[in-house]
C-alpha cells in the first residue's frame, strides 16, 4: 500500500468556485505528478514536479495550477471551477532518477455543476 493520500475523495461544487485538491506523500519522494482521468479512459499528465519549488506543465493543457513548497505536499488549485473540469484527478509520486515506479493516490473525483 502506497503512502500517498488525497483529499477530498469526492467533491461536488458549483461553477465559479475556487477549489484546492490536496496530495501528500510520506515516502520522501522528490517527484510528484498530477493526472486527469475521465471514467474508463487513459490518464493524462497535467502537472509534475522534480522537487521543492519545481513545477512543470504536463502533456495535457489544464487551467489548474500547482505549488510545491514542501517535499511531501503537492496541492492542485482551480481558481474558477467549470463543468468542463469534471473528472478524476490522480496524484502520484516517485523517487528521483529514471525508470522508477510511480505510486498513485486514491484520486479525487470532482464534479462541477
Amino acid at each position: 500500500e502506497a503512502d500517498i493520500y488525497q483529499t477530498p475523495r469526492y467533491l461536488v461544487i458549483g461553477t465559479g468556485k475556487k477549489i484546492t485538491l490536496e496530495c501528500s506523500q510520506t515516502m520522501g519522494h522528490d517527484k510528484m505528478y498530477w493526472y486527469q482521468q475521465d471514467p474508463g479512459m487513459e490518464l493524462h499528465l497535467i502537472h509534475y514536479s522534480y522537487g521543492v519549488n519545481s513545477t512543470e506543465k504536463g502533456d495535457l493543457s489544464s487551467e489548474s495550477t500547482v505549488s510545491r513548497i514542501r517535499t511531501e505536499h503537492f496541492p492542485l488549485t482551480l481558481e474558477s471551477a467549470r463543468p468542463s473540469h469534471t473528472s478524476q484527478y490522480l496524484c502520484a509520486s516517485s523517487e528521483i532518477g529514471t525508470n522508477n515506479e510511480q505510486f498513485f493516490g486514491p484520486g479525487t473525483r470532482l464534479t462541477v455543476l
Partner: protein
Amino acid sequence: GESVGLHLPTLSVQEGDNSIINCAYSNSASDYFIWYKQESGKGPQFIIDIRSNMDKRQGQRVTVLLNKTVKHLSLQIAATQPGDSAVYFCADLTGGYNKLIFGAGTRLAVHP
C-alpha cells in the same frame, strides 16, 4: 508523436481461464514499461514491470512479454479470479523526464 495504445477496450473471461491483455507502443527508444491495475474508485496499482533488455518477466500469476521488434507487450494473467476484474493500463516510462505515457486501458471482466 509518442503513443501507447491498447488493442481491446473490454475483455471478458471465465473464472479460472487465462487472460491476455495486449498493448502497442510507438517509440522504439522506450526502455521501461509498467502494467497497472485500476479497480473502480481507486488509483492505479503497480502489477509488474519490464525493461527493454528482457523479453519476459514473471510475477505471481502474471507474466509480461515484450516484443521490441513489433513494439508490442502483453500481460498474461493465469487462472483469472473475480478479484482480477479491473481496468489494466500499460505505461511507457519515457527516459529522462520519468513521465509515464498511459494507454487507454482494457477493462477485464471475470465471469463465474
